[in-house]
């Protein structure tokens, strides 16, 4: 077998080509085909999913305004010690940049960027830029301090220097209710200004609650689906899937009709004399409303994975448990339920992750106490136009989801999960 081995231990084909290379060659065409088949999906996912996520996350750390609009100031502050006021060169650079920024009409961007870091900075920058344009000649230091005494304050300059890098962590810090002091330390915001941490906490708590309720409601349904005769289980399956066929908005607004203070449910309760007319229950525009409506919407995502797992469990397991002497309850708890853990895991993961990022329903029925973190992200995207903070919040949300995914994976094993 002279030509089967080229080197010691390396297999070759009969014409002397190493086996590995020959195998790769023969499979190249196959691989190319496989790649072409998935290419459309790959391109679609890249464009519609990966790129937006990356770009939104980038916005949470990107910091182009100061560096781009005040380039001379940034240069001049490069060697500044940060202890005393900077020297004349920095003030001259400031006048040049403010004048140019005013001419290019982009001074507003850096004004609002710095205003995120310290309120009042918007006025300082825009006011100064207007007046700086009128200055004839230097030295500028005195004149600028006269225009606005903030320029005589070291912390103003350290703020500009701090935010002159291409990237910043100030959005991320703000997204968890911390702030950067003038000295550059990271400290918690004062109690009454903290909103995001408690909002994250509420989002997690409510998602957790919704997941638990979904498990409790979906388990018996899935069990029925898996064990009833075909004709009946098909009908039940249609009922389970019915929510998917109606618009999300319709379903959510239906809950408003049902649950509002002069809605159907309250009317019935009053009519049945369970509550009196003045004591109508507030069941919508608060956490209760959000939980009810979201549980309804997310229930199928729990039923389907559970069903697909239960469907594969033959009745002989329960029978075996019974024949071994376990009563029905014990058989159920010790044999049946453990065999459905993968389904519970998959369903919980789906429901939990979906509800962490849910937006429309809490926006419609959440009121003040029922909104979730995604509503805050939407607010910063649409109203305050602070996309940096929105990006940072979104990034933290993504991290939380990934942490939960990792925990689920560790505890149950994603590869064992059945998604329906």
């Amino acid at each position, binding site marked *: 077998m002279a030509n089967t081995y080229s080197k010691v231990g390396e297999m070759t084909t009969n014409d002397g080509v190493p086996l590995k290379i020959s195998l790769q060659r023969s499979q190249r065409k196959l691989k190319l085909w496989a790649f072409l088949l998935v290419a459309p999906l790959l391109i679609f996912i890249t464009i519609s999913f990966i790129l937006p996520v990356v770009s939104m996350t980038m916005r949470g750390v990107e910091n182009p305004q100061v560096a781009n609009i005040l380039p001379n100031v940034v240069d001049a502050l490069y060697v500044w010690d940060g202890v005393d006021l900077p020297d004349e060169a920095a003030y001259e650079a400031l006048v040049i940049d403010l004048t140019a920024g005013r001419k290019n009409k982009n001074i507003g961007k850096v004004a609002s960027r710095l205003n995120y870091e310290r309120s009042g900075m918007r006025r300082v920058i825009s006011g100064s830029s207007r007046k700086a344009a009128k200055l004839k000649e230097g030295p500028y230091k005195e004149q600028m301090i006269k225009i606005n005494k903030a320029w005589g304050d070291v912390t103003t300059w350290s703020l500009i220097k701090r935010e002159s890098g291409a990237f910043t962590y100030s959005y991320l810090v703000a997204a968890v209710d911390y702030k950067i002091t003038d000295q550059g330390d990271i400290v918690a915001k004062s109690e009454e200004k903290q909103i995001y941490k408690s909002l994250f906490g509420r989002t997690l708590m409510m998602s957790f609650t919704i997941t638990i309720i979904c498990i409790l409601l979906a388990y018996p349904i899935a069990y029925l689906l898996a064990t009833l005769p075909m004709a009946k289980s098909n009908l039940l399956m249609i009922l389970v899937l019915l929510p998917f066929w109606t618009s999300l908005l319709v379903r959510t607004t239906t809950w408003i009709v049902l649950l509002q203070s002069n809605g159907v449910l309250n009317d019935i309760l009053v009519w049945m004399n369970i509550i009196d007319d003045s004591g109508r229950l507030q069941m919508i525009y608060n956490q209760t409303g959000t939980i009810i409506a979201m549980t309804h919407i997310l229930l199928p995502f729990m039923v389907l994975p559970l069903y697909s797992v239960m469907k594969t469990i*033959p*009745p*002989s*397991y329960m*029978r*075996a*448990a*019974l*024949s*071994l*002497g*376990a*009563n*029905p309850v*014990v*058989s159920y708890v*010790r*044999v049946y339920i*453990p*065999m459905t*853990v993968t389904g519970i895991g998959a369903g919980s993961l789906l429901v939990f992750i979906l509800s962490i990022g849910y937006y429309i329903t809490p926006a419609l029925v959440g009121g003040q106490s029922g909104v979730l973190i995604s509503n805050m992200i939407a607010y910063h995207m649409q109203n305050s136009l602070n996309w940096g903070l929105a990006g940072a919040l979104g990034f933290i949300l993504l991290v939380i989801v990934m942490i939960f995914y990792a925990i689920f994976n560790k505890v149950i094993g994603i590869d064992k999960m059945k998604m329906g």
Partner: protein
Amino acid sequence: MDSNPDFLVQFKNVQKSYDGVHLVVKDFNVDMVKGEFLTMLGPSGSGKTTCLMMLAGFETATSGQIILDGQSINNVAPHKREIGMVFQNYALFPHMSVAENLAFPLQVRKMGKSEITEKVNHALKMVRLDHFANRRPAQLSGGQQQRVAVARALVFRPKLVLMDEPLGALDKNLREEMQYEIKHIHEDLGVTMLYVTHDQVEALTMSDRIAVFDDGIVQQLASPHVLYDEPTNAFVANFIGENNRLMGKVVSIEGDVCSVELDGGGGLVQAKKINVAGVGDRTTLSLRPERVIVDPAAGECPNNCEARVEELIYHGDHTRTRVSVSGSTDFIIKVPNTHNQQHMKRGQSIRIGWNTGDCRALDA
């Protein structure tokens, strides 16, 4: 309620229908003695599993009575029947180790920890799996899983053990090995076993008695050698072992011997009267291949027939010879390969014969 204390299980006129239209079990009557190994043998769909399920309590009898240990079973919940069961798919709990599977029936009986450990170890030794206690069922081979299932059904010392085609998924060698093992366990423990199979060899080697099942009724209930040597109807004769059939019409009856005119011009032969009503009836003659005599000496046997050799298949110790006799072309003869045996050739005409006692006249 008339229940005989010697019988552990009695099926009395049991009927079962799933859909209210067809009877799956038509009239099932079996009495099982304590310590017996009884097999239900029958083709697929004949209702064997259904009978087991009724006994175990997972199906209810549509009519009739099942009595377990002197008690009508309808009033006893499945988990209180003390019946061990081995399922066709084993039904080992996948989330428990082998030892936990075996401990399960003991735990639900609230036994002490040390007692459980002892019994589990003992049961594992019995099926020679002591080294696999901590494995999950999925990490065992088919044969090992099967042994765990048997051990689990026995570990709590049930009155009765039901096995539903427990060896169906195993290959031939393993199946034979397991047959002996189960048989030995049965002998060692003296436990009563009700076994279901559609493999007749399995039934013949393992059982004390066999109930041959077809079409929802027991065709014959007897010990293996009685079933083989003395089948009482054509179905049993055909189902158990290899069998030659010759069709014909009864022309006369003297005592327990009847003369039969063979279809296809084979002439008049004599057979033992088993399952024919009277003269003029059509009948199936049943004759085991190894009881056929080739070229009988003159006067050696009363029945003589002309036959033509169609096919010879060499089997080492014997040659399976297919001949055509009186219209039937799948008549098999087992010719032992002894040194003085002359060789037959295809197409050759030979004479065959048999003793009257070996040929049974059964229902047509």
